[in-house]
């Protein structure tokens, strides 16, 4: 048995439970089977009319229903489902009594169009201004919408349902949010504040305005037909990401606590790192230094050398800029090995689950370690010669994998990386 502390004397942080929902399905088993079979969860959106939209496909989760529908309620339900699976596997605590804090990666919340229109229709005039809407909003008719559209509402609900301890933290670091939620959990355990942490990342915001917002920034693929071929990470003809929904939940524990209770140990969060890019609101610094620094900080945090990483679960959004920058920065950190480490992007199949991506992809990384099998990057038919990664093209690949780096980069200069291992390093 390894020492319960890492080489820096900090408690080792292990994963003892995982739960996942994506457009591929519910649960680890279903997701892993479809992911390694190269199936896509992307389809033409049917939840709302797509007339007038440039991008009409997404990885929506239509097999989960919430009433009345809102993106926030869907995010909450997906988080709940993923958490239930993670807790069941972990066996930690008891029902409604999780012995640690909650760190939730969740999309920013605001009143949504169905509810806004509903309120507008109660004004009772043909022409009105926001004062009329304001006057129509009070009196308790829409009291539920206050709660629903508070930023803290999803975390509050999860904290109550699962009995997490203390003040639950809702966070956003854009597309890196899921990784940040894990990082906060790791830090709390390393500080000795908690023996366990519940790290959840959720995204349920495929709605018209969210699609329009990303579309207006030219971030989304417009290769609508066929939808399952739209997400083309590392391909020459990639043209943007595909929005998607999903959730991932991880139970983190100190190695010592997990061993003491005989918990299943699914893997180790060996290192985390982040470094902010101050170059531009949506673009990476052209020299890639912040991303390079982020990866190096993560290696340093894990006390590992680049040679010890044998798979990269890429951010791989399929935007022209991201994938190019990800190669350049990976090459700077890994040198010539950048062309030989198997790299894959789960987003080719599940789409970009935005706030959830870091959590979802950490789970896929841990499943990769468990099964010694790397999921493919599908739609990889036209390799971009400027990105000579060893992309796991179109078919899953069996490989010896001991340590995975999972990367997440987001708007606002957010960069976060994780290193996940099978055994303590």
């Amino acid at each position, binding site marked *: 048995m390894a020492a319960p502390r890492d080489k820096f004397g900090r408690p080792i942080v292990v994963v003892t439970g995982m739960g996942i929902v994506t457009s591929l399905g519910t649960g680890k088993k279903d997701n892993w089977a479809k992911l390694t079979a190269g199936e896509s969860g992307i389809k033409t959106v049917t939840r709302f009319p797509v007339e007038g939209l*440039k991008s009409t496909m997404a990885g929506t989760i239509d097999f989960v229903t919430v009433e009345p529908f809102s993106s926030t309620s869907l995010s909450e339900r997906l988080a709940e489902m993923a958490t239930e699976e993670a807790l069941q596997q972990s066996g930690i605590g008891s029902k409604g009594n999780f012995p640690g804090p909650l760190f939730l990666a969740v999309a920013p919340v*605001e009143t949504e169009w169905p509810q806004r229109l509903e309120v507008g229709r109660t004004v009772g005039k043909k022409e009105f201004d*926001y004062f009329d809407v304001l006057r129509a*909003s009070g009196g308790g008719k829409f009291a539920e919408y*206050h709660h629903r559209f508070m930023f803290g509402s999803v975390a509050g609900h999860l904290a109550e349902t699962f009995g997490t301890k203390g003040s639950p933290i809702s966070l956003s670091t854009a597309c890196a949010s899921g990784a940040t939620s894990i990082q906060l959990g790791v830090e709390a355990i390393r500080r000795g504040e908690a023996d366990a942490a519940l790290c959840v990342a959720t995204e349920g915001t495929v709605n018209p305005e969210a699609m329009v917002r990303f579309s207006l*920034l030219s971030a989304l693929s417009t290769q609508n037909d066929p939808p399952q071929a739209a997400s083309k990470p590392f391909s020459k003809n990639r043209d943007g990401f595909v929005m998607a929904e999903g959730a991932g939940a991880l139970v983190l524990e100190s190695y010592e606590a997990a061993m003491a209770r005989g918990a299943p140990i699914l893997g180790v969060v060996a290192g985390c790192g982040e*470094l902010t890019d101050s170059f531009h*609101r949506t673009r990476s610094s052209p020299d890639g230094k912040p991303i390079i620094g982020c990866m190096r900080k993560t290696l340093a945090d894990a006390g590992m050398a680049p040679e010890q990483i044998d798979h990269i679960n890429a951010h791989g959004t399929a935007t022209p800029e991201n994938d190019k920058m990800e190669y350049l920065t990976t090459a700077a950190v890994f040198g010539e090995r950048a062309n030989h480490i198997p790299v894959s992007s789960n987003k080719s199949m599940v789409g970009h689950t935005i706030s959830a991506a870091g959590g979802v992809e950490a789970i896929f990384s841990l499943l990769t370690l468990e099964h010694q099998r790397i999921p493919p990057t599908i739609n990889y038919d036209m390799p971009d010669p400027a990105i000579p990664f060893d992309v796991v093209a179109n078919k899953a690949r069996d490989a010896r994998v001991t340590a995975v780096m999972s990367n997440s980069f987001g708007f606002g200069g957010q960069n976060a990386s994780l290193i996940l291992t099978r055994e303590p390093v």
Partner: protein
Amino acid sequence: MTEPKSPGAKEVWITGIGIVSSLGEGLEAHWDALNAKRINFDDKRFAPYIVHPLAPVVFDAQIPKKGDQRQMEAWQRIGTYAAGLALDSAGVKGNQEILSRMDMVIAAGGGERDIAVDMAILNADAQGNSSPGFLNERLMNDLRPTLFLAQLSNLLAGNIAIVHGVCGTSRTFMGEEAASIDAARIALARIEAGQSDIALIGGAHNGERPDLMILYEFGDFNLTDKFSGVWARENNSGFAMGSVGAFLVMESREHAEARGAKPYAKLTRVVADLAQRKQPGAVTKSLEALWTKLGVSADSGNLITGATGVEPVTAEERAFLRQHPGFAVRATGTTFGHTLETQFPLGLALAALSISRGALFPPNDPTGFEVEKSEPPTQIVVVGAGHWQGEGMALVEAVK
């Protein structure tokens, strides 16, 4: 039981404070206004709703590029401005070596909507134009492409990174008042544990926003008709939103001493809770439990609260405060309005400022609940209770 600090926990100093609000900008202006018991509220512009509008600010002083200002909505400008004041106050503005490894924990909501676009859609809908795709078409054609970036929660941090070069790490916490408590709590814990040497924390709120008024009107939280201090709203409860940006630079004592920085105060402890507010008295009980964890042993002292003025939470908080009658209370809500994600950093900022000035600012409360206190404060408790969820408390102390 006070939670024991881990052995070797580092002392954490507050070495920079930045405030911009309805009272003006900077520490002198705020200290003078607080001592003059000045309140700046506007009950006309959004009548019958009341707001505490931002005092005139020349944003160029902290956000020199007009292009940057244009990329932001008001909440981001307020926050980026206040963050710059805090960095100036800590003497680290422009110090790339420090800024490049400075950690940032920001409490943020979201940005303003385009009210004109929203109203045009709502009106068209009311007039029967609800064909499939109508909403898509209007949004695609009428939304400014960069508005999204002015709305995204984590883009306040993003703008601070771009404008001021704070680029160690960047985390944005959301969740109204509680986010601001947790931002301070996590930054403190990280510095104490040696996971961070120096951090910028804070929040920004634009109180002059009809879209937010609608959101809070859903829950009947807005103060209307007649302004009064938060302790005098028992028969007309509600909060008046305030525009405030409040940021702090926090660092380990060693780090501050090594660069010759002087502290305003030290931040000794931050504790937080999420009470299930289902039974009357839940908030009183939660605050009492936090008080015990905070480890205040004296039976007299000073306390700054962000009490909102909405019920039932304000009455429950008052019940808690009445159990500690030796503590002189100051409510920021009366003077600054309610500032959601900025509630707690504002309380911390005023506590640190008071300690550094050797005086608690005077009461501003005709009900007499707030009392005069003449002794120089060595300890100030900061309390934050959210208008609907989340409670927290901090202990700010003089550096010995």
